[in-house]
């Protein structure tokens, strides 16, 4: 049996029935990685010895836990104790975290096998997974194309069946956009749903960790494990975590779906539009009520985001100065010279661009004109959604305006790259949960994704709607030929 092709729920059942073991599952995935990874390049660290040590430890356990024996790949900005965690940046080369991120310790507790570190855009700055110091990840559906980003390695590894599940992080679409372009399920939970202790911060008012999986049910299973308050992260809300698998019901009867007209304007690829419209017809046919809504400040979201996110990033990345960890320039003349050279040598081009932009919008004389204004526009964007959610249960949009583009196509046009997050950014600015599920294939055979957004802390609505769609379509069963 080809275990590597299965979902977490299928593997769980086989292990419970003693038809396979964590070790056999790991072996199957390792041989898959050996067959495909030289093409996809989704992973930046695979420690086979450590994987088998974990499997041996699991065999001694009396209590199995909800993810017993399930391999999970971790994005390279999430700390795994003792394993290189670099944010795909030269400046953090060789950094071995002295502790596990809360999500990682919860996975270990649940019996998961921490399988590999996933490639990403440097410091999660990007939408194409090309800015990594390890080189670009390739889309398993077409190796000439980008997998999306920044969680490109997490999504490409799940799409290529190199892992069963993965964790990504999402600041402006970094889970949902690559999930869409790789034909997998990606969920950004509500801001405050999942602890970020041990996530190397990009933009603290926007970042969330979330699941990347082969189907909706697995996403619920994984969110069950990682959600919930944490004494180590005061922004992680102390609020009961429902059993999300209970929301996996095939029923959208009476669910009110809002479709924002601003998301179907110029710049949207016609194949993406058609696929999303067909998906809405499916849901309508199953009893959902679909109505047009208006989110009037949509057109300002990308501009707003690139002020807020870069301002926060420039501040968060001040910690990389060559003192406590990572790279330090070889022979600095002074302390200040050490900072400047270390950062000049350690950060890649996109990181530099964002640090400069963020520093500028916060600098004296420009703060009010840029940063403060952006915070005010952020409120207007959030109020659009508050108004919409007073009369709909969820909002459906395309996840990305296009299918996966070619490697190199947008790398020298940062603004065009930023605009690939146009549909996902608002959920971060306003703190709502969003999920991307496969909803079609283009003529070239590239995946198209559907985004569902719900009210804060209503992940149950996402799971219900996404699960129903999945049960009544076949898109999640499509696989790339590798």
């Amino acid at each position, binding site marked *: 049996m080809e275990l590597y092709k299965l979902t977490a729920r299928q593997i769980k059942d086989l292990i419970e029935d003693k038809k396979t073991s964590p070790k056999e599952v790991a072996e199957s995935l390792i041989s898959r990685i050996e067959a495909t990874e030289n093409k996809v390049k989704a992973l930046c660290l695979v420690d086979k010895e450590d994987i088998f040590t974990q499997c041996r430890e699991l065999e001694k356990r009396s209590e199995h836990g909800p993810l017993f024996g399930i391999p999970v790949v971790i994005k390279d900005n999430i700390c795994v104790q003792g394993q290189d965690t670099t944010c795909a940046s030269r400046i953090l080369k060789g950094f071995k975290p*002295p502790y596990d991120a809360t999500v990682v310790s919860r996975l270990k507790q649940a019996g998961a096998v921490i399988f590999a570190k996933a490639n990403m855009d440097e410091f999660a700055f990007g939408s194409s997974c090309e800015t990594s110091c390890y080189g670009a990840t390739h889309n398993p559906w077409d190796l000439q194309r980008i997998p999306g980003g920044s969680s490109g390695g997490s999504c490409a590894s799940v799409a290529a069946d190199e892992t069963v599940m993965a964790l990504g992080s999402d600041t402006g679409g970094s889970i949902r956009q690559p999930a869409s372009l790789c034909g997998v399920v990606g969920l950004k939970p509500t801001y405050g749903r999942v602890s970020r202790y041990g996530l190397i911060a990009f933009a603290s008012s926007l970042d969330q960790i979330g699941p990347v999986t082969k189907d909706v049910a697995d996403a619920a299973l994984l969110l069950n494990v990682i959600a919930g308050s944490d004494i180590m992260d005061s922004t992680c809300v102390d609020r009961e975590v429902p059993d999300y698998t209970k929301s996996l019901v095939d029923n959208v009867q009476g669910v009110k779906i809002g479709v924002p007209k601003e998301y179907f304007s110029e710049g949207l690829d016609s194949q993406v539009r058609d696929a999303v419209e067909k998906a809405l017809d499916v849901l309508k046919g199953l009893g959902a009520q679909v109505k047009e809504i208006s989110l009037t400040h949509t057109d300002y979201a990308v501009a707003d985001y690139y002020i807020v996110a870069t301002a926060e990033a420039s501040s968060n990345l001040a910690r990389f100065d060559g003192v406590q960890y990572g790279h330090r320039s070889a022979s600095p003349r002074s302390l200040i010279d050490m900072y400047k050279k270390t950062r000049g040598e350690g950060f890649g081009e996109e990181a530099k661009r964002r640090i400069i932009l963020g520093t500028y919008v916060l600098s004296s004389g420009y703060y009010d004109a840029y940063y403060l204004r952006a915070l005010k526009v952020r409120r207007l964007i959030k109020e659009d959604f508050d108004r919409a959610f007073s009369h709909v249960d969820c909002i459906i949009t395309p996840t990305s305006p296009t299918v996966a583009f070619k490697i190199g196509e947008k790398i020298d046009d940062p603004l065009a790259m930023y605009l690939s997050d146009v549909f996902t950014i608002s959920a971060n600015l306003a703190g709502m949960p969003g999920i991307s599920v496969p909803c079609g294939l283009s003529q070239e055979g590239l995946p198209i994704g559907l985004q569902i957004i719900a009210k804060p802390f209503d992940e149950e609505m996402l799971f219900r709607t996404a699960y129903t769609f999945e049960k009544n379509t076949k898109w999640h069963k499509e696989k790339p030929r590798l």
Partner: protein
Amino acid sequence: MDIEYVSQLARMELTDKQKSKLSKQLSDILAYIEKLKELDVSTVQPLSHVLPLKNVFRQDKIRPSLPLNKVLNNAPSREGDSFSVPKVIE
């Protein structure tokens, strides 16, 4: 944008080539960002954080922390139990 000055604020050295490429790209991005000025925000309160959180309190109890050696292990340069840096005061 005075890129020389901003890179000084960010304590980040840029080569001349990087400076000229960044200047061009950043001026395009800033021109795009200008569109926020179309909106009248004079009566809008800023939103820095979506959660209605203020202070989050916990018991002031000592819990175990990381051992010093583990913390210092990643340092590019150390001396005993300290991080070592170039001389700060001349």
